């Protein structure tokens, strides 16, 4: 995948970073997608869980590191071969956490179809839903670039 620079509106994205940071904090010790691990030996289960958490934290750190001084100065983030897997996974983790922590009031069908009228949402939910959409857009952008760069 080629290195891509994405220009974002600092005014729009900066408030969303507060939401992402808060969720990332909660995800330090909790998996975004709780897994059913009954089939595993107890010893393996703990190691398995720890490994998933470690990977999740590394992904979230990479995502948050994108929004560095350069982003706040010029609104630019850089995606490349080294960070895309981490970033796209971190977006998935935060979206899952947003859904379970803040967007429970939206029914499953609307969540899947994306058919949600933002104006109808309560003020508090609006920001988290915009964050949810922003992260989905980041994922779509990366997927498109991956598809274009694959042979």
């Amino acid at each position, binding site marked *: 995948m080629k290195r891509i620079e994405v220009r974002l509106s600092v005014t729009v994205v900066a408030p969303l970073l507060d939401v992402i940071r808060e969720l990332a904090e909660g995800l330090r010790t909790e998996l975004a997608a709780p897994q*059913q691990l009954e*089939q*595993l030996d107890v010893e393996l289960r703990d190691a*398995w869980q720890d490994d998933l958490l470690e990977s999740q934290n590394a992904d979230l750190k990479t995502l948050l590191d994108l929004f560095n001084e350069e982003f706040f100065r010029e609104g630019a983030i850089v995606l490349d071969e080294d960070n895309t897997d981490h970033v796209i*996974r971190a977006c*998935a*983790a935060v979206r899952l956490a947003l859904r379970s922590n803040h967007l429970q009031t939206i029914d*499953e069908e609307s969540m899947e179809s994306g058919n949600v009228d933002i104006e109808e949402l309560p003020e508090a939910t609006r920001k988290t839903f915009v964050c949810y959409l922003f992260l989905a857009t980041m994922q779509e952008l990366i*997927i498109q670039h991956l598809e274009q760069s694959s042979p």
Partner: protein
Amino acid sequence: MTLVWAKTQTTPEAETLTELQLEGIWHVIVLNDPVNLMSYVVMVFKKVFGFDEVTARKHMMEVHEQGRSVVWSGLREKAEAYAHTLQQWHLTAVLEPDETH
């Protein structure tokens, strides 16, 4: 891990057969969730299993429409590795033994 190796002098093919007889076949199943994008799930299947676009889409649609899809079957140790990788990508993946054998 619970893989049991047969301690006999055999060919690799025979060893694999013995393993399957001892351990049985395990399925890696992906369950639906209302959050992950369809395009994301397709991308993960392509990355993790090396599926082509058509196969990846077929499994994604099964997950979406039927709530689950068996994405891989085989030895337990490898099934565990696949389930772990899918979970790293935040898909809900479970392991199930094949009860038909």
